[in-house]
Protein backbone atom coordinates (compact mmCIF):
# COMPACT_ATOMS: atom_id res chain seq x y z
CA UNK A 1 0.00 0.00 0.00
CA UNK A 2 1.15 3.52 -0.76
CA UNK A 3 1.00 6.12 1.98
CA UNK A 4 1.84 9.11 -0.20
CA UNK A 5 0.81 9.36 -3.85
CA UNK A 6 1.50 12.26 -6.19
CA UNK A 7 0.03 12.17 -9.70
CA UNK A 8 1.16 14.82 -12.17
CA UNK A 9 1.29 17.55 -9.56
CA UNK A 10 2.09 21.03 -10.89
CA UNK A 11 2.49 24.22 -8.87
CA UNK A 12 3.24 27.73 -10.14
CA UNK A 13 3.69 31.05 -8.37
CA UNK A 14 3.22 34.68 -9.40
CA UNK A 15 0.26 33.98 -11.70
CA UNK A 16 1.93 31.13 -13.51
CA UNK A 17 5.21 32.93 -14.19
CA UNK A 18 7.29 30.79 -11.84
CA UNK A 19 7.05 27.05 -12.35
CA UNK A 20 8.02 25.48 -9.01
CA UNK A 21 6.78 21.91 -9.40
CA UNK A 22 6.47 20.50 -12.91
CA UNK A 23 4.22 17.48 -13.45
CA UNK A 24 5.63 15.48 -10.54
CA UNK A 25 4.54 11.90 -9.84
CA UNK A 26 5.91 9.47 -7.26
CA UNK A 27 4.68 7.17 -4.52
CA UNK A 28 5.92 6.43 -1.03
CA UNK A 29 5.05 3.01 0.33
CA UNK A 30 3.84 2.35 3.83
CA UNK A 31 6.77 2.10 6.26
CA UNK A 32 9.25 3.32 3.66
CA UNK A 33 12.10 5.78 4.21
CA UNK A 34 11.91 7.84 1.03
CA UNK A 35 14.29 10.68 0.14
CA UNK A 36 13.61 13.71 -2.04
CA UNK A 37 17.09 14.74 -3.16
CA UNK A 38 17.83 18.07 -4.81
CA UNK A 39 19.34 21.54 -4.40
CA UNK A 40 17.63 24.72 -3.16
CA UNK A 41 14.94 25.88 -5.56
CA UNK A 42 14.29 22.37 -6.94
CA UNK A 43 10.68 22.40 -5.66
CA UNK A 44 11.08 20.23 -2.56
CA UNK A 45 9.43 22.61 -0.12
CA UNK A 46 6.48 23.27 -2.45
CA UNK A 47 5.84 19.53 -2.55
CA UNK A 48 5.92 19.31 1.26
CA UNK A 49 3.56 22.26 1.60
CA UNK A 50 1.05 20.66 -0.74
CA UNK A 51 1.25 17.30 1.05
CA UNK A 52 0.73 18.99 4.43
CA UNK A 53 -2.34 20.72 2.91
CA UNK A 54 -1.14 24.28 3.43
CA UNK A 55 -0.78 24.94 -0.30
CA UNK A 56 -3.02 23.96 -3.23
CA UNK A 57 -1.62 22.46 -6.42
CA UNK A 58 -2.48 24.11 -9.79
CA UNK A 59 -3.22 20.69 -11.22
CA UNK A 60 -2.74 17.01 -10.54
CA UNK A 61 -3.87 14.80 -7.70
CA UNK A 62 -2.22 13.74 -4.48
CA UNK A 63 -3.18 11.76 -1.41
CA UNK A 64 -1.67 11.10 2.00
CA UNK A 65 -2.68 7.95 3.91
CA UNK A 66 -5.49 7.52 1.42
CA UNK A 67 -6.95 11.01 1.94
CA UNK A 68 -7.12 13.56 -0.86
CA UNK A 69 -4.96 16.62 -0.12
CA UNK A 70 -7.67 19.03 -1.28
CA UNK A 71 -11.00 17.47 -0.30
CA UNK A 72 -9.93 15.65 2.86
CA UNK A 73 -7.26 17.98 4.17
CA UNK A 74 -8.54 17.88 7.76
CA UNK A 75 -7.97 14.14 8.10
CA UNK A 76 -4.44 14.49 6.80
CA UNK A 77 -3.49 17.16 9.31
CA UNK A 78 -4.11 14.79 12.23
CA UNK A 79 -2.12 11.98 10.70
CA UNK A 80 1.10 13.63 9.64
CA UNK A 81 4.03 14.96 11.62
CA UNK A 82 5.71 17.86 9.81
CA UNK A 83 9.11 19.39 10.36
CA UNK A 84 9.40 22.48 8.14
CA UNK A 85 12.73 23.53 6.65
CA UNK A 86 12.93 26.69 8.68
CA UNK A 87 12.96 26.24 12.48
CA UNK A 88 9.30 26.85 13.31
CA UNK A 89 8.96 26.25 17.02
CA UNK A 90 8.26 29.07 19.44
CA UNK A 91 11.65 30.58 20.20
CA UNK A 92 10.48 32.26 23.39
CA UNK A 93 8.86 29.16 24.83
CA UNK A 94 11.01 26.62 26.66
CA UNK A 95 11.71 23.11 25.43
CA UNK A 96 9.02 21.73 27.77
CA UNK A 97 6.48 24.41 26.80
CA UNK A 98 6.94 23.78 23.08
CA UNK A 99 6.44 20.06 23.50
CA UNK A 100 3.35 20.52 25.68
CA UNK A 101 1.93 23.05 23.23
CA UNK A 102 2.18 20.68 20.29
CA UNK A 103 0.77 17.77 22.30
CA UNK A 104 -2.22 19.91 23.34
CA UNK A 105 -2.89 21.19 19.82
CA UNK A 106 -3.20 17.59 18.68
CA UNK A 107 -5.47 16.71 21.58
CA UNK A 108 -3.05 14.52 23.50
CA UNK A 109 -0.51 14.83 26.32
CA UNK A 110 3.24 14.44 26.57
CA UNK A 111 2.85 11.63 29.12
CA UNK A 112 0.45 9.63 26.95
CA UNK A 113 2.87 9.45 24.03
CA UNK A 114 6.22 9.83 25.73
CA UNK A 115 7.45 6.39 24.61
CA UNK A 116 7.27 7.62 21.01
CA UNK A 117 9.82 10.41 21.56
CA UNK A 118 11.77 9.00 24.51
CA UNK A 119 14.99 8.10 22.63
CA UNK A 120 15.25 11.51 21.01
CA UNK A 121 13.92 13.64 23.81
CA UNK A 122 16.22 12.16 26.48
CA UNK A 123 19.11 13.82 24.65
CA UNK A 124 17.71 17.32 25.14
CA UNK A 125 16.11 16.70 28.53
CA UNK A 126 18.95 18.44 30.43
CA UNK A 127 17.82 21.66 28.71
CA UNK A 128 14.09 21.23 29.32
CA UNK A 129 13.71 24.69 30.84
CA UNK A 130 15.79 26.49 28.23
CA UNK A 131 14.08 28.66 25.63
CA UNK A 132 14.02 27.04 22.20
CA UNK A 133 15.69 30.09 20.65
CA UNK A 134 18.75 29.50 22.84
CA UNK A 135 19.35 25.90 21.73
CA UNK A 136 22.15 24.80 19.39
CA UNK A 137 21.35 23.74 15.82
CA UNK A 138 21.55 20.04 16.63
CA UNK A 139 19.31 20.38 19.70
CA UNK A 140 16.75 22.52 17.88
CA UNK A 141 16.55 19.77 15.32
CA UNK A 142 15.91 17.16 18.03
CA UNK A 143 13.23 19.28 19.67
CA UNK A 144 11.53 19.91 16.32
CA UNK A 145 11.50 16.18 15.62
CA UNK A 146 10.06 15.48 19.10
CA UNK A 147 7.29 18.03 18.49
CA UNK A 148 6.53 16.48 15.09
CA UNK A 149 6.25 13.04 16.73
CA UNK A 150 4.36 13.78 19.93
CA UNK A 151 0.92 12.96 18.47
CA UNK A 152 2.11 9.59 17.12
CA UNK A 153 1.77 10.39 13.42
CA UNK A 154 1.61 7.62 10.83
CA UNK A 155 3.61 9.62 8.36
CA UNK A 156 6.56 11.94 8.96
CA UNK A 157 7.26 14.74 6.49
CA UNK A 158 10.72 16.20 7.10
CA UNK A 159 11.80 19.13 4.94
CA UNK A 160 15.60 19.44 4.95
CA UNK A 161 16.06 18.47 8.59
CA UNK A 162 19.86 18.34 8.28
CA UNK A 163 20.54 21.57 6.38
CA UNK A 164 23.15 23.75 8.07
CA UNK A 165 23.82 21.09 10.70
CA UNK A 166 27.39 19.80 11.08
CA UNK A 167 28.51 16.36 9.89
CA UNK A 168 28.36 14.75 13.33
CA UNK A 169 24.79 15.86 14.10
CA UNK A 170 23.75 14.86 10.60
CA UNK A 171 24.92 11.28 11.23
CA UNK A 172 23.06 11.15 14.56
CA UNK A 173 19.90 12.42 12.92
CA UNK A 174 19.90 9.67 10.30
CA UNK A 175 20.37 7.10 13.06
CA UNK A 176 17.19 8.43 14.68
CA UNK A 177 15.31 8.16 11.37
CA UNK A 178 16.34 4.54 11.02
CA UNK A 179 14.91 3.77 14.47
CA UNK A 180 11.63 5.53 13.63
CA UNK A 181 11.39 3.57 10.41
CA UNK A 182 11.84 0.36 12.40
CA UNK A 183 8.72 1.35 14.36
CA UNK A 184 6.76 1.33 11.11
CA UNK A 185 6.46 5.08 10.51
CA UNK A 186 6.47 6.18 6.87
CA UNK A 187 9.08 8.87 6.33
CA UNK A 188 9.40 11.33 3.44
CA UNK A 189 12.57 13.38 3.94
CA UNK A 190 14.23 15.95 1.70
CA UNK A 191 17.90 16.90 1.60
CA UNK A 192 20.35 18.84 -0.55
CA UNK A 193 23.21 16.59 0.65
CA UNK A 194 23.77 13.92 -1.99
CA UNK A 195 25.71 11.66 0.42
CA UNK A 196 22.54 11.23 2.50
CA UNK A 197 20.67 9.68 -0.45
CA UNK A 198 22.30 6.31 0.13
CA UNK A 199 20.68 6.17 3.60
CA UNK A 200 17.17 6.05 2.06
CA UNK A 201 15.38 2.98 0.72
CA UNK A 202 14.22 4.80 -2.38
CA UNK A 203 14.89 8.29 -3.63
CA UNK A 204 13.60 10.81 -6.13
CA UNK A 205 16.21 13.10 -7.69
CA UNK A 206 14.64 16.49 -8.32
CA UNK A 207 15.94 19.55 -10.16
CA UNK A 208 14.10 22.65 -11.49
CA UNK A 209 10.75 21.25 -10.37
CA UNK A 210 11.16 18.03 -12.35
CA UNK A 211 11.80 14.51 -11.11
CA UNK A 212 14.86 13.18 -12.95
CA UNK A 213 14.74 9.65 -11.53
CA UNK A 214 12.90 7.56 -8.90
CA UNK A 215 14.42 4.30 -7.71
CA UNK A 216 16.56 2.70 -5.02
CA UNK A 217 19.94 4.42 -4.66
CA UNK A 218 21.60 1.16 -5.76
CA UNK A 219 19.58 1.00 -8.98
CA UNK A 220 20.22 4.65 -9.79
CA UNK A 221 23.95 4.01 -9.40
CA UNK A 222 23.69 0.86 -11.53
CA UNK A 223 21.95 2.81 -14.29
CA UNK A 224 25.00 5.07 -14.74
CA UNK A 225 25.67 4.44 -18.44
CA UNK A 226 29.46 4.75 -18.59
CA UNK A 227 32.58 3.52 -16.86
CA UNK A 228 33.69 6.12 -14.33
CA UNK A 229 37.33 6.83 -13.56
CA UNK A 230 38.96 8.74 -10.72
CA UNK A 231 42.18 10.49 -11.68
CA UNK A 232 44.56 12.76 -9.82
CA UNK A 233 48.02 14.26 -10.29
CA UNK A 234 50.24 16.74 -8.48
CA UNK A 235 48.60 19.62 -10.37
CA UNK A 236 44.91 18.89 -10.01
CA UNK A 237 43.55 22.21 -11.33
CA UNK A 238 45.71 22.04 -14.46
CA UNK A 239 44.68 18.41 -14.88
CA UNK A 240 41.02 19.45 -14.78
CA UNK A 241 41.53 21.99 -17.55
CA UNK A 242 43.71 19.63 -19.62
CA UNK A 243 41.15 16.82 -19.51
CA UNK A 244 38.19 19.09 -20.11
CA UNK A 245 39.64 20.41 -23.34
CA UNK A 246 40.67 16.97 -24.65
CA UNK A 247 38.56 15.48 -27.46
CA UNK A 248 38.53 11.92 -26.05
CA UNK A 249 36.95 13.03 -22.77
CA UNK A 250 33.18 13.04 -22.42
CA UNK A 251 32.88 14.56 -18.94
CA UNK A 252 35.31 15.69 -16.26
CA UNK A 253 34.69 17.37 -12.92
CA UNK A 254 36.31 17.69 -9.51
CA UNK A 255 35.23 15.24 -6.82
CA UNK A 256 37.09 15.46 -3.55
CA UNK A 257 40.80 14.89 -4.11
CA UNK A 258 40.14 13.24 -7.52
CA UNK A 259 38.66 14.20 -10.86
CA UNK A 260 35.80 12.03 -12.05
CA UNK A 261 36.03 11.28 -15.74
CA UNK A 262 34.09 9.45 -18.44
CA UNK A 263 35.45 8.82 -21.94
CA UNK A 264 33.54 9.18 -25.20
CA UNK A 265 34.66 5.75 -26.38
CA UNK A 266 34.58 2.88 -23.93
CA UNK A 267 37.46 0.87 -25.35
CA UNK A 268 39.28 -1.60 -23.14
CA UNK A 269 42.34 0.59 -22.93
CA UNK A 270 40.55 3.45 -21.17
CA UNK A 271 43.05 3.52 -18.30
CA UNK A 272 45.96 3.65 -20.76
CA UNK A 273 44.27 6.49 -22.65
CA UNK A 274 43.87 8.52 -19.47
CA UNK A 275 47.48 7.84 -18.47
CA UNK A 276 48.67 8.91 -21.94
CA UNK A 277 46.66 12.17 -21.90
CA UNK A 278 47.98 13.05 -18.44
CA UNK A 279 51.60 12.34 -19.44
CA UNK A 280 51.25 14.26 -22.72
CA UNK A 281 50.26 17.27 -20.66
CA UNK A 282 53.34 16.94 -18.45
CA UNK A 283 51.71 15.66 -15.27
CA UNK A 284 53.46 13.76 -12.47
CA UNK A 285 52.16 11.79 -9.50
CA UNK A 286 49.37 10.37 -11.65
CA UNK A 287 46.86 8.00 -10.02
CA UNK A 288 44.08 6.42 -12.08
CA UNK A 289 41.42 3.98 -10.92
CA UNK A 290 38.03 2.79 -12.04
CA UNK A 291 35.30 3.40 -9.50
CA UNK A 292 31.64 2.89 -8.74
CA UNK A 293 29.63 6.09 -9.28
CA UNK A 294 28.01 7.83 -6.31
CA UNK A 295 24.52 9.35 -6.27
CA UNK A 296 26.17 12.73 -6.79
CA UNK A 297 27.77 11.43 -10.02
CA UNK A 298 24.36 10.21 -11.18
CA UNK A 299 22.75 13.53 -10.26
CA UNK A 300 25.38 15.52 -12.16
CA UNK A 301 25.00 13.29 -15.20
CA UNK A 302 21.18 13.51 -15.24
CA UNK A 303 21.35 17.30 -14.79
CA UNK A 304 23.78 17.70 -17.65
CA UNK A 305 21.81 15.33 -19.90
CA UNK A 306 18.67 17.39 -19.32
CA UNK A 307 20.58 20.57 -20.02
CA UNK A 308 22.03 19.06 -23.18
CA UNK A 309 18.50 18.28 -24.35
CA UNK A 310 17.36 21.85 -23.62
CA UNK A 311 20.35 23.89 -24.72
CA UNK A 312 22.73 21.62 -26.62
CA UNK A 313 25.53 22.37 -24.13
CA UNK A 314 27.96 19.41 -24.07
CA UNK A 315 28.54 17.24 -20.98
CA UNK A 316 32.08 18.52 -20.53
CA UNK A 317 30.85 21.97 -19.44
Amino acid at each position, binding site marked *: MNDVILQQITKTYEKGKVLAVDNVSFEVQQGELFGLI*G*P*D*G*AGKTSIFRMLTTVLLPDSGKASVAGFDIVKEYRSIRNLVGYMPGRFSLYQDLTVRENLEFFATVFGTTVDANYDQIKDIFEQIKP*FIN*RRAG*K*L*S*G*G*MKQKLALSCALIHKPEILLLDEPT*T*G*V*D*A*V*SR*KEFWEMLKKLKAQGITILVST*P*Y*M*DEAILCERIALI*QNGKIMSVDTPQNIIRAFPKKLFAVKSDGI*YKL*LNDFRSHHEIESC*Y*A*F*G*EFLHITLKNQELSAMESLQRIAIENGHSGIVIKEMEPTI*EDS*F*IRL*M*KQNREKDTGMPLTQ
Partner: protein
Amino acid sequence: MENKAIICKDLTKKFGDFYAVNKVSFDVAKGEIFGFLGANGAGKTTVMRILCGLSYPSSGEATVAGFNVYNQQESIKKNIGYMSQKFSLYENLTVLENIEFFGGIYGVSRKEIKERANKLVEYLGLQNETKKLVGGLPLGWKQKLAFSVAIFHRPEIVFLDEPTGGVDPVTRRQFWDMIYEAAASGITIFVTTHYMDEAEYCNRISIMVDGRLEALDAPGNLKNRFSANSMDEVFYRLARKAVRSDD
Protein backbone atom coordinates in the same frame (compact mmCIF):
# COMPACT_ATOMS: atom_id res chain seq x y z
CA MET B 1 56.61 37.08 7.09
CA GLU B 2 56.35 38.52 3.58
CA ASN B 3 54.55 35.57 2.07
CA LYS B 4 52.00 35.14 4.86
CA ALA B 5 48.49 36.48 4.40
CA ILE B 6 47.34 35.57 7.90
CA ILE B 7 49.34 34.87 11.04
CA CYS B 8 47.72 33.78 14.33
CA LYS B 9 49.63 33.04 17.49
CA ASP B 10 47.89 31.80 20.65
CA LEU B 11 44.74 33.62 19.60
CA THR B 12 42.23 33.49 22.45
CA LYS B 13 38.73 34.86 22.95
CA LYS B 14 36.95 34.60 26.29
CA PHE B 15 33.32 35.42 26.96
CA GLY B 16 33.24 35.53 30.76
CA ASP B 17 34.72 32.18 31.85
CA PHE B 18 34.01 30.58 28.50
CA TYR B 19 36.89 30.07 26.09
CA ALA B 20 35.24 30.42 22.67
CA VAL B 21 38.71 30.31 21.10
CA ASN B 22 41.58 28.80 23.04
CA LYS B 23 45.22 29.48 22.02
CA VAL B 24 44.77 28.98 18.32
CA SER B 25 47.90 29.31 16.15
CA PHE B 26 48.20 29.00 12.38
CA ASP B 27 49.56 30.76 9.28
CA VAL B 28 47.99 31.08 5.88
CA ALA B 29 50.31 31.57 2.88
CA LYS B 30 49.56 34.10 0.17
CA GLY B 31 47.52 32.55 -2.64
CA GLU B 32 46.67 29.51 -0.54
CA ILE B 33 43.19 27.94 -0.38
CA PHE B 34 42.78 27.40 3.34
CA GLY B 35 39.84 25.33 4.59
CA PHE B 36 38.55 26.16 8.04
CA LEU B 37 36.36 23.38 9.43
CA GLY B 38 34.70 22.56 12.70
CA ALA B 39 31.39 21.43 14.15
CA ASN B 40 28.72 23.99 15.00
CA GLY B 41 29.90 25.88 18.06
CA ALA B 42 33.58 24.94 17.73
CA GLY B 43 34.60 28.62 17.53
CA LYS B 44 34.97 29.12 13.78
CA THR B 45 32.76 32.18 13.59
CA THR B 46 34.56 33.84 16.50
CA VAL B 47 37.94 33.38 14.79
CA MET B 48 36.51 34.69 11.52
CA ARG B 49 35.08 37.77 13.22
CA ILE B 50 38.45 38.58 14.77
CA LEU B 51 40.30 38.10 11.48
CA CYS B 52 37.77 40.31 9.66
CA GLY B 53 38.36 43.12 12.15
CA LEU B 54 34.92 42.87 13.76
CA SER B 55 35.92 41.62 17.21
CA TYR B 56 38.98 41.95 19.48
CA PRO B 57 40.81 38.90 20.82
CA SER B 58 41.19 38.53 24.60
CA SER B 59 44.85 37.61 24.18
CA GLY B 60 47.31 36.34 21.60
CA GLU B 61 48.51 37.87 18.35
CA ALA B 62 47.12 37.97 14.85
CA THR B 63 47.82 39.88 11.66
CA VAL B 64 45.76 39.89 8.49
CA ALA B 65 47.34 41.18 5.26
CA GLY B 66 50.10 42.53 7.51
CA PHE B 67 47.73 44.52 9.75
CA ASN B 68 47.26 43.95 13.45
CA VAL B 69 43.83 42.80 14.67
CA TYR B 70 44.07 45.01 17.78
CA ASN B 71 44.73 48.43 16.34
CA GLN B 72 44.47 48.27 12.55
CA GLN B 73 40.95 46.93 12.11
CA GLU B 74 39.99 49.54 9.51
CA SER B 75 43.01 48.70 7.35
CA ILE B 76 42.10 45.02 7.59
CA LYS B 77 38.55 45.70 6.40
CA LYS B 78 39.84 47.54 3.34
CA ASN B 79 42.09 44.67 2.35
CA ILE B 80 39.73 41.75 2.68
CA GLY B 81 36.60 40.55 0.92
CA TYR B 82 33.78 38.66 2.64
CA MET B 83 30.99 36.49 1.40
CA SER B 84 28.57 34.16 3.14
CA GLN B 85 25.46 32.33 2.14
CA LYS B 86 23.45 34.45 4.56
CA PHE B 87 24.77 37.86 3.62
CA SER B 88 26.02 38.60 0.18
CA LEU B 89 24.13 40.96 -2.10
CA TYR B 90 21.20 43.38 -1.89
CA GLU B 91 18.26 41.55 -3.42
CA ASN B 92 16.35 44.71 -4.29
CA LEU B 93 19.22 46.32 -6.18
CA THR B 94 20.06 45.33 -9.75
CA VAL B 95 23.14 43.34 -10.72
CA LEU B 96 24.94 46.50 -11.83
CA GLU B 97 23.84 48.52 -8.80
CA ASN B 98 25.23 45.86 -6.47
CA ILE B 99 28.57 45.92 -8.26
CA GLU B 100 28.68 49.73 -8.17
CA PHE B 101 27.63 49.85 -4.53
CA PHE B 102 30.25 47.42 -3.23
CA GLY B 103 32.94 48.84 -5.53
CA GLY B 104 32.14 52.31 -4.18
CA ILE B 105 32.19 51.19 -0.53
CA TYR B 106 35.66 49.74 -1.02
CA GLY B 107 36.88 52.97 -2.63
CA VAL B 108 37.30 51.80 -6.21
CA SER B 109 37.14 54.86 -8.49
CA ARG B 110 34.10 55.40 -10.72
CA LYS B 111 36.17 54.94 -13.83
CA GLU B 112 37.65 51.68 -12.53
CA ILE B 113 34.25 50.42 -11.42
CA LYS B 114 32.88 50.95 -14.92
CA GLU B 115 35.74 49.13 -16.60
CA ARG B 116 35.84 46.22 -14.18
CA ALA B 117 32.05 45.92 -14.10
CA ASN B 118 31.94 45.49 -17.88
CA LYS B 119 34.56 42.78 -17.77
CA LEU B 120 32.90 41.03 -14.86
CA VAL B 121 29.44 41.00 -16.44
CA GLU B 122 30.91 39.53 -19.59
CA TYR B 123 32.91 36.92 -17.64
CA LEU B 124 29.78 35.80 -15.81
CA GLY B 125 27.66 35.86 -18.96
CA LEU B 126 25.21 38.28 -17.33
CA GLN B 127 25.12 40.85 -20.17
CA ASN B 128 21.35 40.64 -20.48
CA GLU B 129 20.72 40.66 -16.74
CA THR B 130 22.58 43.80 -15.60
CA LYS B 131 19.34 45.74 -15.05
CA LYS B 132 17.51 42.89 -13.35
CA LEU B 133 17.04 42.76 -9.60
CA VAL B 134 19.40 40.31 -7.90
CA GLY B 135 16.44 38.84 -5.99
CA GLY B 136 15.10 37.35 -9.23
CA LEU B 137 18.31 35.56 -10.24
CA PRO B 138 18.72 31.80 -9.78
CA LEU B 139 20.64 30.88 -6.61
CA GLY B 140 23.68 29.65 -8.50
CA TRP B 141 24.08 32.95 -10.37
CA LYS B 142 23.60 34.91 -7.16
CA GLN B 143 26.42 33.03 -5.52
CA LYS B 144 28.81 33.45 -8.42
CA LEU B 145 27.99 37.16 -8.54
CA ALA B 146 28.39 37.47 -4.76
CA PHE B 147 31.85 35.92 -4.93
CA SER B 148 32.86 38.19 -7.82
CA VAL B 149 31.64 41.23 -5.90
CA ALA B 150 33.58 40.11 -2.80
CA ILE B 151 36.84 40.15 -4.79
CA PHE B 152 35.91 43.13 -7.00
CA HIS B 153 38.23 45.52 -5.10
CA ARG B 154 41.05 42.97 -5.47
CA PRO B 155 41.53 42.24 -1.80
CA GLU B 156 44.52 40.29 -0.54
CA ILE B 157 42.28 37.81 1.22
CA VAL B 158 38.70 36.73 0.78
CA PHE B 159 36.72 35.07 3.58
CA LEU B 160 34.04 32.65 2.38
CA ASP B 161 31.62 31.47 5.06
CA GLU B 162 29.80 28.37 3.78
CA PRO B 163 29.52 29.86 0.31
CA THR B 164 27.99 26.84 -1.45
CA GLY B 165 25.19 25.76 0.89
CA GLY B 166 22.18 24.38 -0.96
CA VAL B 167 23.44 24.84 -4.53
CA ASP B 168 23.26 22.01 -7.06
CA PRO B 169 26.37 19.86 -7.57
CA VAL B 170 27.16 21.29 -11.00
CA THR B 171 26.97 24.93 -9.88
CA ARG B 172 28.96 24.07 -6.75
CA ARG B 173 31.82 22.89 -8.97
CA GLN B 174 31.60 25.96 -11.20
CA PHE B 175 31.90 28.01 -8.02
CA TRP B 176 35.06 26.14 -7.05
CA ASP B 177 36.49 26.79 -10.53
CA MET B 178 36.15 30.49 -9.72
CA ILE B 179 37.87 29.98 -6.36
CA TYR B 180 40.80 28.21 -8.05
CA GLU B 181 41.06 31.01 -10.59
CA ALA B 182 41.07 33.68 -7.87
CA ALA B 183 43.73 31.78 -5.91
CA ALA B 184 45.86 31.44 -9.05
CA SER B 185 45.67 35.23 -9.45
CA GLY B 186 47.19 35.59 -5.97
CA ILE B 187 44.13 36.10 -3.78
CA THR B 188 44.26 34.11 -0.54
CA ILE B 189 41.11 32.06 0.10
CA PHE B 190 39.88 31.37 3.63
CA VAL B 191 36.82 29.13 3.38
CA THR B 192 34.44 27.27 5.70
CA THR B 193 32.19 24.48 4.46
CA HIS B 194 29.99 21.61 5.62
CA TYR B 195 30.72 19.65 2.44
CA MET B 196 33.64 17.35 3.20
CA ASP B 197 34.42 16.74 -0.49
CA GLU B 198 35.07 20.48 -0.75
CA ALA B 199 37.63 20.19 2.04
CA GLU B 200 39.66 18.12 -0.45
CA TYR B 201 39.83 21.09 -2.82
CA CYS B 202 41.79 23.10 -0.25
CA ASN B 203 45.60 23.22 -0.09
CA ARG B 204 45.44 22.85 3.67
CA ILE B 205 42.68 22.27 6.18
CA SER B 206 42.32 23.14 9.82
CA ILE B 207 39.75 21.52 12.08
CA MET B 208 38.57 23.24 15.25
CA VAL B 209 37.09 21.28 18.16
CA ASP B 210 35.82 23.00 21.31
CA GLY B 211 37.75 26.23 20.70
CA ARG B 212 41.06 24.54 19.93
CA LEU B 213 42.75 23.82 16.63
CA GLU B 214 42.95 20.03 16.65
CA ALA B 215 44.37 19.41 13.18
CA LEU B 216 46.12 21.40 10.46
CA ASP B 217 47.62 19.87 7.34
CA ALA B 218 47.10 19.02 3.68
CA PRO B 219 44.03 16.80 3.16
CA GLY B 220 46.17 13.82 2.04
CA ASN B 221 48.39 14.03 5.12
CA LEU B 222 45.40 14.23 7.46
CA LYS B 223 43.88 11.13 5.90
CA ASN B 224 47.18 9.29 6.30
CA ARG B 225 47.58 10.33 9.89
CA PHE B 226 44.09 9.16 10.83
CA SER B 227 44.24 6.14 8.50
CA ALA B 228 40.98 7.42 7.01
CA ASN B 229 39.63 6.97 3.49
CA SER B 230 37.90 10.32 3.33
CA MET B 231 37.92 13.73 4.97
CA ASP B 232 34.46 12.89 6.21
CA GLU B 233 36.00 10.19 8.36
CA VAL B 234 38.79 12.47 9.64
CA PHE B 235 36.28 15.13 10.55
CA TYR B 236 33.97 12.67 12.25
CA ARG B 237 36.75 11.20 14.40
CA LEU B 238 37.88 14.61 15.58
CA ALA B 239 34.54 16.33 15.93
CA ARG B 240 32.60 13.62 17.72
CA LYS B 241 34.92 14.09 20.71
CA ALA B 242 33.49 17.57 21.06
CA VAL B 243 31.64 18.17 24.29
CA ARG B 244 30.07 21.48 23.42
CA SER B 245 27.81 22.70 20.65
CA ASP B 246 26.67 26.18 19.66
CA ASP B 247 24.47 26.99 22.63
